[in-house]
């Protein structure tokens, strides 16, 4: 491998796109560089569940044609990694669950159609927590993913594979999904940028549902600009998803036209409480002082209902999941366990196909929706959700954006939290509110503690995705930059 090709993996997605359009490199060279790196190093990271080498290489030809005809966009020819809960036609989509082993979707998710149209070859499907239920990628039924910054630690989750692949430069850019923080939290733990758009700006058609009212697809990248460009590709109204918003794609036109001067930034007080690690707090606080020096007007703001976020989330998300996952019965697709009669067959298929975490959440959700408990759990949770949304909207009346640490702790040792489900669940404390209120949120690196990345989360009001990205871009210019991504040897 020439050093010329090796250095390609260091480039941002946008820079790769530029080099492709100026014909300094070919689509085939770029994709080959990443596939080679995956083949050489992913055994250590575990970020991919399936590689798409052949189809990916043939996609480079179409991408090259687009570029040669002058029709290639910013990311044309830039290969992408895709979370394994996003349906890819002809490519196994398992949600890291045994119950979908061997399932090959006959259709593309709307975001995948957009990705293919833009000439982005798909490298493969990334590892995740089973059905996106988890915050460490350890509930994957296939393999554990490792944090490129410290292989003994977790990349976070549930989109751990998508985050780790970008941080490890196995992919320039990737797609994940975020139900309670599943993009932003692993982005934070891996030092990448991770963006969850406003609920409804990105079609969910083809995203295997976990909790329909909270799920949202979004991009990972090593820069805000990369993430913004990918957001532009995958967002926009989709008639196939009736919860999708009748708005155009997220525009990158004014991405670089923002300024921190006079920007009102609110620090969410509740996210800096006892549950947040001291090391995270101190990295976050020094980042805040940099923003302040750059002219941002920073104040604390309290959103009391945030304290009920995790509890509320663990009623609504499992309730929806218990229903969404009912279709996995072994009758139409996926492996089927033999049983006497259909009831026994379905019971056995589900007992053997789902992992422990998924079963736990299905049971919680089933309970929360049961006659006699519905009002006390589900209805009350929806009331709290409405209250939280209202308090967040209220806070936005005084601030342009709200900020917080993305995760209360930096990356943790693999296995260290698996026996402590509660500790794992409070990791979503800072990220859950954005899903509850359907607002956009982004995580970007704001520094390191003991060699581990610490992320800052920025939140904006509903549908102000462009404004959020513009602010994130300003933050990125102000905060320390990651100069050296982890070397995998």
């Amino acid at each position, binding site marked *: 491998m020439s050093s010329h090709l090796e250095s390609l993996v260091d480039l941002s997605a946008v820079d790769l796109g530029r080099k492709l359009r100026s014909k300094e490199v070919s689509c085939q060279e770029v994709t080959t560089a990443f596939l080679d790196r995956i083949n050489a190093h992913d055994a250590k990271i575990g970020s991919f569940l399936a590689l798409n080498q052949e189809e990916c290489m043939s996609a480079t030809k179409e991408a090259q044609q687009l570029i040669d005809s002058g029709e290639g966009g910013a990311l044309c020819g830039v290969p992408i990694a895709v979370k394994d809960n996003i349906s890819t036609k002809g490519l196994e989509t398992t949600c890291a669950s045994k119950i979908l082993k061997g399932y090959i979707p006959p259709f593309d998710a709307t975001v995948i159609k957009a990705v293919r149209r833009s000439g982005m070859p798909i490298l493969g499907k990334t590892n995740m927590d089973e059905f996106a239920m988890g915050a460490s990628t350890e509930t994957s039924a296939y393999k554990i993913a490792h944090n490129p910054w410290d292989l003994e630690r977790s990349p976070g989750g549930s989109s751990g594979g998508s985050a780790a692949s970008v941080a490890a430069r196995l992919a320039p850019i990737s797609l994940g999904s975020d139900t309670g923080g599943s993009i932003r939290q692993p982005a934070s733990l891996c030092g990448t940028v991770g963006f969850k758009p406003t609920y409804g700006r990105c079609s969910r058609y083809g*995203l295997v549902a976990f909790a329909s009212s909270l799920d949202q697809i979004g991009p990972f990248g090593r820069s805000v600009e990369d993430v913004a460009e990918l957001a532009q590709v995958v967002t926009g109204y989709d008639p196939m998803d009736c919860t999708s918003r009748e708005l155009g794609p997220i525009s990158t036109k004014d991405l670089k036209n923002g300024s921190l001067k006079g920007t009102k930034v609110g620090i969410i007080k509740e996210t800096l409480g006892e549950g947040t690690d001291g090391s995270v707090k101190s990295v976050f606080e020094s980042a805040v002082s940099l923003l302040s020096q750059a002219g941002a007007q920073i104040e604390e703001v309290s959103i009391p209902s945030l304290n009920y976020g995790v509890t509320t989330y663990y009623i609504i998300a499992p309730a929806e999941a218990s229903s969404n996952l009912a279709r996995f019965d072994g009758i139409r697709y996926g492996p089927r366990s033999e049983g006497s009669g259909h009831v026994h067959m379905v019971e056995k298929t589900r007992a053997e196909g789902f992992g422990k975490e998924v079963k736990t959440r299905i049971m919680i959700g089933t309970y929360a929706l*049961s006659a006699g408990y519905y009002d006390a759990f589900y209805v009350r949770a929806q009331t709290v959700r409405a209250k939280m949304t209202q308090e967040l909207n209220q806070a936005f009346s005084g601030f342009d954006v709200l900020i917080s640490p993305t995760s209360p702790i930096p990356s943790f040792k693999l296995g260290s939290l698996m026996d402590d489900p509660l500790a794992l669940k409070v990791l979503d404390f800072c990220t859950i509110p954005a899903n509850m209120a359907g607002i956009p949120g982004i995580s970007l690196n704001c520094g390191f503690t003991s060699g581990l990345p610490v992320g800052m989360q920025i939140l904006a009001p509903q549908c102000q995705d462009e404004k959020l990205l513009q602010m994130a871009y300003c933050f990125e210019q102000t905060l320390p930059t990651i100069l050296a991504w982890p070397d995998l040897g």
Partner: protein
Amino acid sequence: MASYLASVGMEVHAELSTNSKMFCRCPVAFGGEPNTRVCPICLGLPGTLPKPNKAAVIAVLRTALALNCKIAMHSIFHRKNYFYPDLPKGYQVSQYEETNPIGYHGYLDVPMQDGTLHRVRIRRVHLEEDTGKLIHLPGGGSGVDYNRAGVPLMEVVTDFPPDITNPEQAKEYLATLRQILIYLGVCDGKMEEGSLRCEPNISVRKETDEKLGNKTELKNLNSFKSVSLGVAFEVRRQIATIEAGERVVQETRGWNEAKEASYSMRIKEAENDYRYFPDPDLVPMEFEEAFIEELRASLPELPHVKRERYQSSLGLSPYDAGVLTSEKELAAYFEETVAMGGDPKLVCNWMTGELAKLLNESGQSITETKIRPSHILDLLKLLSSGSINGKTAKSVFAESFQSGRLPSDLVAESGATQISDSGAIDAAVQKVLGAHPDIVAKYKSGQTNVIGFLVGQVMKETQGRANPPMVQQAVKSALET
């Protein structure tokens, strides 16, 4: 034996005759090879999302308005969760709660055989999706056909406590409802194909009791006959059970058409907890007042209104009005003929008489027959101008029914026009009188009733083409001169 009262609640499911399914664009049709009208959405493949069919929503709104319901201006879809192989998603998209269904708190006035109207209150008219069908495979085992999965299904449920108290009311309620659905064009009403399904729940109680008895729900009723037989059977069975000192078990029972008896299906309804909750993949339906009023104004004239109008403005008998409005197509045919200038009573007589007879014999429907309103008008003109007599009219009509040719063309061709020429009639009269001197003598001796025989002979002589009143007159004057 004590006196008993029966209470019958009716749950009717109507498959809507939309072009496509409720949440995908697969076509809606009956029969066909299994799993040929399916797609990722109606198979419930992972990641697929529902896309509501507006035509189905409008069909339910129109039905709700026709059934005098209140409209939920904000209506949502719920998920009804249960496992069954014919249910692709493990839940059925349906509607739940008292005032959420698209239509609620309405009523239907059911005309009874004795001419009275019986009001049945409607609790809800809601929209859901149909399930697939289990098929027993010839080689053993079961398969599932998902062609029907996701077909828009409307549920019409009567209110509680039930207003229906006997099998006849149950049958007439269903017939009246079916007629309205067909008039609205929202359902083809074919019970034998399962596009209209009825599940009555039946309970009996002693006349002296306030509280309703335990109810049973009847399934697999696929004709009007089985609905009335089934309800009657259950009423008898439950009374006998109570009389024998036993308790009626609250359960779902199937109907055995051949044995004309119900049987226990061993399904314990009470154990099901469907865990209804709002479907997060669908957004609430919001209706504007103006839109609803527009729909209300555009409803077709419903059967009972038509029936009333046929009697009051067109002078038809209640029976004839009932026959003509029994089918939407029949009424349309009648109205078209009248609009073209046909006398309502005469048109009605031909439609309910000769035409009905010929249709019945040939097995054709009113939309299939070659006899169009213009044929009827043509025939009525020939009759009113005296060109043909009633007897000829019938045979010409029958010929017209076969060939589809206009009666006037047939008459002109065969020379079958009526003889109204007095010279020709007089000649025939003279011939007949000459041939029957004995009869003439009888007449002259005072037996005037023999004139009928002579008139008949003249008609025979003219191959039935002579104008009967003229013949009558001519015979009479010939005998008396």
